[in-house]
């Protein structure tokens, strides 16, 4: 068996473990990952939207819906990768058990990326059905939504795995959630365009991966695709490539002493 097919088979085995575990709780899991973005959509989109007439030529509800899809996927990935990985390392011993088999840490990490990419697509798809029902989907370009969501499965999973590997308590996971993920959610152009912001704030926002994800999902859902949109892909791919190896060393340090 050559290296690549070995790697993929090993990662698929890790994916399979996560899927079998998820299958037991999928209803509550979908509900949990779904309540918040749906609340945001209704409270802000419908409620606040009544006072904000038009944003970039579309209704406020229309403006925020695709961005909330990106947020749903980001959260589905982040919380699962954070909490589950922390437990797999510290209480259940799932990773320790995997390492008694021929699986290696890089294979486990790749398997988690595959699984979280699956989750991003799955939870994104559920949210997509809701905004479709609201009549907020306007383009066949939406069929390309899985592409950014797959990248989410790497670029948001990687830091969450890393944080789970270095965190000593559950509380430390929340530092990451509330100091990184929540601000990113608020400032990544989900609720307002960033063009009118002071340049320094704007440049900071450009660094946030979610910002590029939001631009992509919005362009796809609204059918506002332009060649420049490829740059958003470059950003996401760049982040995914940059971060992919980050958790491998941290996890190996925890698991092989």
């Amino acid at each position, binding site marked *: 068996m050559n290296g690549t097919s070995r790697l993929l088979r090993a990662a698929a085995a890790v994916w399979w473990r996560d899927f*079998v575990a998820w299958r*037991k709780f999928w209803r509550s899991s979908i509900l949990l990952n779904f309540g918040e973005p749906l609340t945001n959509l209704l409270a802000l989109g419908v409620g606040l939207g009544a006072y904000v007439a038009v944003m970039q030529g579309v209704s406020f509800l229309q403006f925020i819906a695709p961005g909330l899809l990106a947020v749903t996927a980001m959260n589905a990935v982040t919380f699962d990768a954070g909490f589950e990985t922390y437990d797999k390392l510290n209480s259940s011993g799932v990773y320790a058990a995997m390492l*008694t*088999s021929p699986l290696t840490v890089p294979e486990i990490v790749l398997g988690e990326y595959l699984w979280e990419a699956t989750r991003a697509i799955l939870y994104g798809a559920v949210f997509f059905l809701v905004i479709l029902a609201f009549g907020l989907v306007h383009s066949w370009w939406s069929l390309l939504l899985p592409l950014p969501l797959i990248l989410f499965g790497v670029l948001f999973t990687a830091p969450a795995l890393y944080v789970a590997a270095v965190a000593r308590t559950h509380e430390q996971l929340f530092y990451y959630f509330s100091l990184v993920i929540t601000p990113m959610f608020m400032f990544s152009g989900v609720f307002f365009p960033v063009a009118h912001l002071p340049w320094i704030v704007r440049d900071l926002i450009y660094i946030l991966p979610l910002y590029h994800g939001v631009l992509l999902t919005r362009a796809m859902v609204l059918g506002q695709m332009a060649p420049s949109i490829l740059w958003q892909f470059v950003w996401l791919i760049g982040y995914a490539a940059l971060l992919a190896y980050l958790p491998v060393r941290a996890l190996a340090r925890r698991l092989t002493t």
Partner: protein
Amino acid sequence: MLPVGSAEPKEILRPGGNGYAKNSRKELVPVAADLGLDSSSGDLHEEVIVARGLEKTYADVRAVRGVDFTIRRGECFAFLGPNGAGKSSTIRMLSCLSPVSGGELTVLGQRADIGARRIKERLGIVSQDDNVDPDLSLMENLLVYAHYFGMPSAEARQHAEELLTFMQLEGRSKAAVRELSGGMRRRLVIARALMHRPDILVLDEPTTGLDPQARLLVWGAVQQLKAQGVTVVLTTHYMDEAERLADRLVVMDHGRILQEDAPRPLIERTVGREAVEIWHRQGDDQPYIAAAGDALLLSDRHGDTLVLYASEPGRIGQEFARQGLAPERMLVRPPNLEDVFLTLTGRDLRE
């Protein structure tokens, strides 16, 4: 609540007894056949694990300080020692779960530092902590684990059924792991370690924390597997466990191997063939020791008990009778590994 076998404790209590042994052997046939480890095939004297000058160093602790040992195919080899002796570090290195700090370690012909993947494909590892997957059922635990080895699903399912029966967990395949008792979890971990039909089963303190019934069941399983030709490597600090299971053992302390032998010869060599325990208040042991004369191999005192070890059975009793010594309370018994262990490693509490 327990299904079939487990509801018949008498059978469990006699691992070598008729019902259990026959039953288990029948269930085990597929395992053995697939392992191809019956005595007709494979060299029983082949050296499957060889360590030379093996060392393990953590940050500033030298846990293993240059040990040599050789484990042969088909035998049960035990690492004995108090907490912190270096047993688990050694066994984690040979399981490729922990990098070798120094020396050489070869497992199944592969160097442990570069052949980890190939080694793990042929090792069944039962870690100290029962790391069964809490989100999965018993059957799922086994199937998912088989998947890690790239085992085809149909084959895995059939083998999982056999192993659940073998470990007396049949009828519970759909149960959640959370519902299991400690003993059942350990049995599930052992079943899991056998999923890929390993050549070597590695057990790190397999019965720590188990009740007597569960211990006997685990011992019975290990003996069955050994009978099928599986090499068994185990650590333990239970002397009766080592005595019952091990063909050969090493006693470790402070990261070094103190003694290596089969249990009986080791006992005879270290503490002779008879132990005489005399209870008396802290007082003068000298009369007893003097009376034992040259029959005495060594003596040991703990609390109110003086233990005299003799190279020949009966000699001390004869000497006492001849000299008119009649201790109020005296027990004559065969020496065991516990005597060896305490003699070699001392009585100081560890940790």
